[in-house]
């Protein structure tokens, strides 16, 4: 009977082992003279595969214990502090399930169990972690307001979020928080490498932690803020008791500045930035920018990155359109190289954000992208130019004129118009109407002019914007004025309602000082007339690098992308032998299915940090030989 029980126990243990199940505990009672085996399965847990903890019955001699151990070829490692328990090592030929089954038949043994493996439960102590729903979604409301002029909170599902609708990163942190072995390049507006949460995690391959390809400098200091925010999402120092945390608590962030303070970049700067990152050892590149044109130069740089085994993580875009449609692609998201991961934005309820682009053929995964709090480059401010006062006009009358507009949906709003009869009249032929005013930009590090206007211009007539650091007429280019924008041949619908044309933000940082003048001009030729202009807003966004602990709350696929890039770095650091393709597979296929992404992305999945770290690629190199 005793023999039969032992055989049955062994057979059961072997069957469990073969089926991949783990025996968690195997205890058996003592005192009856026969082993009454009680097996129970509890949720399995990793255990040391060649070790066991064995408890001998009270009164069993040391010699008998040694005999029991020797009978299975096990060796004693230590005696535990608990009475009777011994820590043993198994021979290579004996698995834990088999050993447990064998000890079940040993009259000297009271109990035996695997030597389970536990992990520390990692939650960072950063003071603002409670606002980082992307990393730990408790359904909390995100209340940290964006810095002035940098946007507004995304109101949808804030709250309620979806508890656990996040990056699933806390359990991943039980396995890895240090990604510093992997260089992650933030090819963006630069990074404020002096930010308290970033300084320790910057790449130190050169004195400036990276490179700049704009502004005539090699210093990648961020004069916009966007790149610093992206960098923080990837690798803000975690568990340092201050600020926020990144996906990786420790990281190596390479700052590659390709965008000016206005956030503008070109094919040339983007390609140069990617090439720099690749040639200087980056293994993950974050590209939180996009445009509608297939750009061969940019594509070639991404192909070169692929050849070097570098992963490129790109933003899907913020137009709320389908990237698969022929008219609305977004590059680099839509490039088809295998090293590209394209990321859409999810909100706090894991719904596709209203602004997020998507594409069942082009966008791969989703990640948190609304109300994302992380590092910022400094203090942002917005100077709103008063449109109904403070102007110098040339000519003094008959051209630009302050006015007030209102309609059924627009409260009385100061505007600046030309001709004075706008919207009912026509501008004059052969006119050069100018209006300018002085703005104090003392002490800031960057300044960006933007605005909006209702514009009706014929070809050959133009609306121009200029600045001059010394003050005075900014269109006097011989005296230092610089024209930074020019529009022509446009027809904005006339009010009501007051439709406007958004003016592309332009960098006017050379105008920083106490006497900066900004101006607008209507320049017309000798023939043809149209309704002219109504300037409805003009503002200057400034950034001052005066606060190394500054943070900001932003939304966009720009913010979703670095979550995926950080997870890619995490997987690469955890599995340093992985190929780029294996890491891409882990990020894409290790994600979890999200209904809002079904049919909207190639995978229908949201990035899941634990899923990516735990993802196992199928075995390769199978071969068989038959004799």
């Amino acid at each position: 009977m005793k023999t039969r029980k032992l055989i049955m126990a062994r057979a059961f243990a072997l069957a469990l082992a073969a089926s991949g199940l783990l025996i968690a505990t195997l205890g058996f009672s003592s005192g009856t003279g026969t082993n009454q085996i009680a097996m129970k399965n509890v949720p399995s847990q990793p255990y040391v595969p060649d070790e066991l903890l064995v408890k001998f019955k009270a009164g069993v001699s040391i010699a008998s214990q040694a005999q029991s151990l020797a009978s299975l070829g096990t060796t004693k490692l230590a005696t535990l502090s608990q009475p009777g328990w011994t820590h043993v090592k198994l021979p290579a030929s004996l698995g834990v399930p088999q050993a447990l089954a064998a000890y079940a038949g040993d009259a000297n043994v009271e109990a035996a169990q695997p030597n389970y493996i536990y992990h520390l439960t990692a939650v960072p102590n950063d003071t603002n972690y409670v606002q980082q729903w992307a990393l730990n979604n408790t359904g909390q409301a995100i209340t940290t307001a964006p810095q002035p002029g940098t946007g507004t909170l995304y109101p949808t599902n804030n709250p309620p979020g979806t508890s656990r609708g996040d990056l699933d990163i806390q359990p991943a942190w039980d396995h890895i928080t240090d990604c510093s072995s992997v260089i992650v390049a933030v090819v963006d507006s630069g990074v404020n490498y002096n930010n308290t949460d970033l300084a320790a995690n910057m790449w130190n391959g050169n004195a400036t932690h990276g490179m700049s390809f704009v502004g005539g400098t090699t210093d990648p200091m961020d004069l916009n803020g966007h790149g610093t925010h992206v960098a923080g999402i990837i690798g803000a120092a975690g568990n340092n008791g201050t600020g926020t945390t990144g996906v990786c608590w420790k990281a190596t962030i390479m700052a590659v500045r390709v965008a000016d303070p206005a956030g503008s970049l070109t094919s040339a700067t983007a390609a140069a930035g990617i090439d720099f990152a690749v040639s200087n050892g980056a293994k993950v590149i974050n590209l939180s920018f996009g445009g509608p044109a297939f750009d061969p130069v940019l594509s070639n740089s991404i192909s070169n990155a692929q050849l070097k085994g570098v992963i490129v993580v790109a933003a899907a875009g913020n137009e709320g359109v389908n990237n698969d449609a022929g008219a609305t692609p977004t590059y680099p998201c839509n490039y088809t190289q295998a090293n590209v991961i394209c990321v859409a934005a999810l909100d706090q309820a894991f719904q596709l954000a209203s602004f997020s682009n998507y594409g069942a053929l082009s966008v791969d995964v989703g990640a948190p992208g609304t109300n994302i709090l992380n590092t910022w480059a400094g203090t942002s401010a917005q100077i709103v130019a008063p449109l109904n006062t403070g102007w110098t006009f040339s000519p003094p009358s008959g051209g630009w004129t302050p006015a007030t507009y209102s309609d059924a949906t627009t409260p009385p709003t100061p505007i600046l118009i030309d001709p004075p009869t706008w919207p009912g009249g026509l501008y004059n032929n052969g006119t050069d109407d100018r209006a300018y005013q002085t703005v104090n930009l003392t002490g800031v590090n960057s300044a960006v002019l933007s605005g909006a206007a209702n514009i009706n211009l014929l070809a050959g007539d133009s609306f121009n914007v200029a600045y001059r650091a010394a003050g005075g007429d900014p269109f006097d280019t011989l005296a230092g004025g610089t024209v930074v924008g020019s529009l022509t041949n446009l027809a904005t619908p006339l009010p009501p309602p007051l439709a406007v044309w958004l003016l592309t933000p332009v960098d006017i940082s050379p105008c920083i000082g106490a006497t900066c003048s900004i101006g607008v001009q209507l320049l017309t030729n000798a023939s043809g007339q149209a309704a002219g202009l109504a300037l409805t807003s003009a503002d200057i966004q400034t950034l001052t690098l005066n606060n190394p602990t500054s943070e900001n709350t932003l939304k966009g696929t720009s913010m979703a992308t670095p979550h995926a890039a950080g997870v890619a770095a995490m997987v690469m650091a955890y599995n340093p032998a992985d190929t780029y393709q294996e890491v891409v597979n882990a990020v894409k296929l290790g994600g979890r299915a999200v209904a809002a992404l079904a049919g909207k992305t190639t995978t229908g999945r949201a990035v899941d940090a634990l899923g990516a770290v735990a993802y196992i690629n199928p075995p390769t190199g199978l071969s068989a030989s038959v004799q």
Partner: protein
Amino acid sequence: MKPLFRSIPTTDLRIALLACLALLLHGCGGGGGGGVAPPPVPPTAHLVTISWAANHERAVEIDPGGGYIVNIPGQAPITCLVTGFGAPCTSAHSVQLTLMTGVYNVTVTAFSALNAPGSTTGSRSAPSTIPVLVP
């Protein structure tokens, strides 16, 4: 003038016809055309080695609890732990066993003790398959 053909004795002709018939019947042995089936070839046992490359995931190759499961139709699954393997595993990345004549679609699945989201039994890869022809 001599005849072009030599006359053949009747006895010789009969022998030749029987020989041709025997040859014809023997030639039909390959099947088809209603010939006589040959005796079945008895299945034979062969020593088969199946191997694969080491995965790159640390949870499979380095951490405790990682390994591979080899599934061969008609056989019990074979588990090869990276740390500590036994027959029929000849290493963590190969098995050697005897298979009878036949075609086997062998799958190899990597596993680890690192729990995937929602799992308490570790993680598994998708299986990789190789057809094995045992003559």
